[in-house]
């Protein structure tokens, strides 16, 4: 059976979204997570969704919230879940991870500007929480020299803990520009250097995001149609 690939984290803007959707389709992605960081941009995103779906790709809307910067994080997540398909927590510190694990957020990831080196105790709140930890490729591609060395080192350690604690991981591009996007096999190949086997990497781009989407769908009111229905 042919795998379906998902890139649930891209940041298109009004100028480049067509090229990003086109490239994702060319790379063989079945669905994209179009992401914004401000709730007020939902209307712009909705305008893109219908046109992108007409281009032959399933689209999910996603909001990234920061537990540090949000006032009443859990309440904000609950509100956002009514408007966006996916809600993610952009974590800067270990405290953010604890706050996100307690909230109804679907995905957690480490902010690209964070110098946080995660330890086992940071990941423990995620065990059995049915939340997905996301690893983004773009911050690793954009860095050079010592900064990339530090990021790769954190990634290797973090991945070892995630695998040990059996926290499901998803891989995403986190791309802001079309040239930051990569094909599923290329993404899995890059994460291989951090200690993720090719098979695990591909699972993080196919089966795990599919499970996440199914979980989100199941959380919703059955009467309410899910904006981007999938059949796996």
């Amino acid at each position, binding site marked *: 059976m042919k795998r379906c690939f998902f890139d649930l984290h891209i940041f298109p803007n009004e100028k480049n979204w067509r090229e990003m959707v086109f490239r994702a389709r060319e790379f063989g992605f079945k669905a994209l997570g179009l992401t914004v960081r401000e709730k007020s941009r939902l209307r712009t995103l909705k305008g893109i969704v219908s046109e992108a779906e007409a281009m032959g790709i399933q689209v999910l809307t996603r909001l990234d919230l920061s537990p540090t910067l949000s006032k009443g994080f859990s309440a904000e997540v609950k509100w956002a879940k009514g408007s966006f398909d996916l809600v993610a927590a952009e974590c800067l510190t270990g405290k953010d991870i604890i706050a996100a694990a307690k909230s109804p957020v679907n995905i957690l990831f480490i902010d690209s500007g964070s110098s946080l080196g995660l330890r086992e105790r940071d990941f423990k709140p995620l065990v059995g929480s049915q939340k997905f930890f996301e690893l983004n490729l773009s911050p*690793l*591609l954009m860095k050079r020299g010592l900064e990339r060395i530090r990021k790769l080192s954190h990634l290797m350690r973090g991945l070892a803990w995630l695998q040990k604690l059996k926290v499901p991981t998803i891989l995403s591009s986190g791309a802001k520009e079309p*040239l930051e996007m990569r094909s599923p096999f*290329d993404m899995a*190949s890059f994460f*291989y*250097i951090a200690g993720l086997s090719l098979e695990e990497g591909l699972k993080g781009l196919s089966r795990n995001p599919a499970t996440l989407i199914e979980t989100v769908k199941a959380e919703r009111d059955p009467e309410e149609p899910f904006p981007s229905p999938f059949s796996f």
Partner: protein
Amino acid sequence: MYPKRVKRRYIAFRILGEGTFTSREVMEEIRNELLRLYGEHGVAKADLQPIEFDEKNLLGILRCERSSLMEVRAALTALMEISGRPVALHCLGVSGTLKSLRRKFLRNP
């Protein structure tokens, strides 16, 4: 005693980006990226060789050691610019022979 037969892999890739590039520029940047990620030992072990590069369509083929395939693919993925111009390298496919690589991925037997 003869050394073991070297097993190789051929990689077809496409450059996404604007502008034209020479085979030399492309190979130099790929080697530099591999050097940044894996050091001199990694570059020597990979035994990278350019096979061909179509400057018009920005399609290329390179050869590497089978045991270094994943490292080379990671370097191709990590490449963000060639001669100062932003690009992305998309690996089209990998094969053990040039003939099957061309047949499967470049449709040019």
